């Protein structure tokens, strides 16, 4: 019997949590990840349809076996009502990107066209700079970032991932009020 994983393959996993909206909850979760050595690629937290609960989306790069362990450890935290790895197939994921490009006005038209291709918006314009806002999955934002690089990125800021699954399935367990 094989006792240890031979060569674990690491890939990106999206773990979604429904947590009680109480002080210290983020600390508990972040602390668990750090003390068990699970690296967080991104973490977002925000309100949900119920004010008593928040939703956290945590992206980790780990082997599948380790992710299972992560989910079970996280489930043990009392304020965590539900936690699940979201199926990569059914995943609707979004990130937000804000990027400031410093570029002379003559390039603006070109950038406008580029932004349009990526369904991005220009949200601020000044004579020698503009700010672009884009949202989408991480692949799309990576691609946009690449294209913008040649214009000189002055400042860039990206949110963590938020995600839901397609269909009627929800994270909240049925017994939740």
């Amino acid at each position: 019997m094989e006792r240890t994983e031979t060569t674990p393959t690491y890939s990106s996993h999206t773990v979604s949590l429904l947590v009680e909206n109480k002080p210290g909850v983020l600390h508990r979760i972040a602390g668990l990840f750090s003390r068990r050595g699970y690296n967080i690629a991104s973490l977002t937290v925000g309100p949900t349809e119920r004010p008593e609960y928040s939703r956290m989306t945590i992206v980790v790069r780990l082997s599948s076996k380790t992710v299972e362990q992560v989910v079970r450890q996280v489930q043990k935290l009392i304020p965590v009502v539900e936690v699940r790895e979201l199926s990569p197939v059914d995943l609707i994921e979004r990130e937000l990107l804000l990027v400031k490009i410093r570029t002379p006005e003559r390039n603006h038209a070109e950038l406008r066209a580029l932004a349009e291709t990526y369904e991005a918006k220009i949200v601020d314009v000044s004579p020698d700079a503009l700010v672009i806002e884009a949202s989408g999955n991480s692949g799309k934002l990576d691609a946009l970032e690449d294209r913008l690089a040649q214009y000189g990125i002055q400042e860039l800021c990206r949110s963590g991932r938020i995600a839901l699954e397609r269909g009627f399935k929800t994270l909240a367990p049925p017994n939740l009020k």
Partner: protein
Amino acid sequence: MAKEKMTGAKAVVRALEAEGVEWVFGMPGGAILPIYDALYDSKKVKHVLVRHEQTGAHAAEGLAHATGKVGVCFGTSGPGATNLVTGIADAYMDSVPMVAITGNVSSALIGSDAFQEADITGITMPITKHNWLVTDVRDLPRILKEAFYIARTGRPGPVLVDIPKDVQNAELEFEYPDRVDIPGYHPPVREEPRLKDAAALIRGSSRPVIYLGGGVRTSGAYEEVAKFAELVGAPVVTTVHGKGSFPETHPRCLGMFGMHGSKFANYTVQESDLIIALGARFDDRVTGKLSTFAPEAKIVHLDVDPAEISKLVTATVPLVGDLKLLLPQLTEETRNAFQTSGRADIAPWWVKVNAWREKHPLRFTAQGEEHIMPQHVIQRIWEKTQGKAFVTTGVGKHQMFAAQYWKTSEPRHFITSGGLGTMGFCLPAAIGVQLARPDALVIGIDGDGSFQMTLQDLGTAVDLNLNIKIFILNNLFLGMVHQWQNLFYDNRLAATPLSDRPDFVKLAEAYGCLGLRARKPSELEDVLDRALAHEGGPVIVDIRTRQDEHVYPMVPAGAPLNDMIEGN
């Protein structure tokens, strides 16, 4: 129950009474004074003044270990709270139910680096099942109810409730809830256990072994385990926390396995084709090098904590749930499988196991006239008491000698710090045990190093007139570390020799209790007899044991389980 107006401090005491708490261990200070003041009036809850909060936490653990009840300890803000940390961490590692209650500075001062302020909820987050900083006095009854509930249910463990002083003084309409509603806490499990698959594996196995851990103790499933073991007829091995869950005097019990388990127990595990793990967590002290652990064995793993399943060793069939509920079902399922389809013959396996048992028994050099052998001391105490005692230990060689030679046949009777390995556990745990079991014989097997970590609470034991008997196997060494230096560090004895200080007999006398000493084998019997016969308070026995007598067999850290070093 009608609501009653009272302070938060009073509410704490009422909650303790409602939970049936008889003993709390602690030391007061400014930030917890309102609770102490309220406790002063309680007719039901008795307080034990310890000399160090760590001791209080270990005493609470001792009580919990011996009874299964939740142990309770108190500490004031800042240093009082941080002194509890080792005891809380110990309880966390060994799944011991505990409620720690700390006072904190007033709410308005929190976060201002106030005098004796410590973020104890932050500090203990990784070593508690859960903790609370109470910000509204009206939450207190619910939080305390949840605290006790979480501490004792599912996989038991410590929790901490931190109560700012103003919250203790504030008033509320008290009503203790009779149920809890915690949406994120589900000790019961959702998946259907695969009992049929497990039974099929058991039926087909010709080299099964049953591996019992501390979960048997916490679930109280002794009879269920006995019935299952009777049906399956396999050899039974235990962890150090499984000791006593199945009588070690039973012919099918091979005792403890692991780093310092017997060769025959380790060989049995290593060569088995099926390991049935019941409430045990495949700790590295028992598996040896993980990739070589029991290479041919399939694993049935029953545990109440899903996170333990396949954490280290992948389970062929996981069974998540409470042993007490699930094991009888597994027994029935197995019985059915045996009846309908027969089972593999395990007689040849027993021939093998018994041959190992005969060829590689636990052994040590017979005691001559010069040196007292530590193993001999433990055997003699066992013989003199017929093993009818609670045993607590420190951490080190003496602990492992006790684990090897103290044959334990009663549940909850072998009490030790396994997961954290906390030196200083012996005396405080013995205090907690003796309070909970006033009529029982309570024996401590301690080391000279370990004893000195918490000896200040000899005063507490004398105050309470507890008849605990602490046998210090005194080798003037941090012996376990000495052993490692001896074996793996060229015998370079960096910081392990301990000076012959203090004089433990005089120390005992200074505390007002009996102190005895045996230096030579010829002095041993008399000293043991006197110690065991003594009544009217604690007795401390300083037994000078052979210094270079190490614990064997031994699996070196990181070696395969069957790769054991033997002594002389």
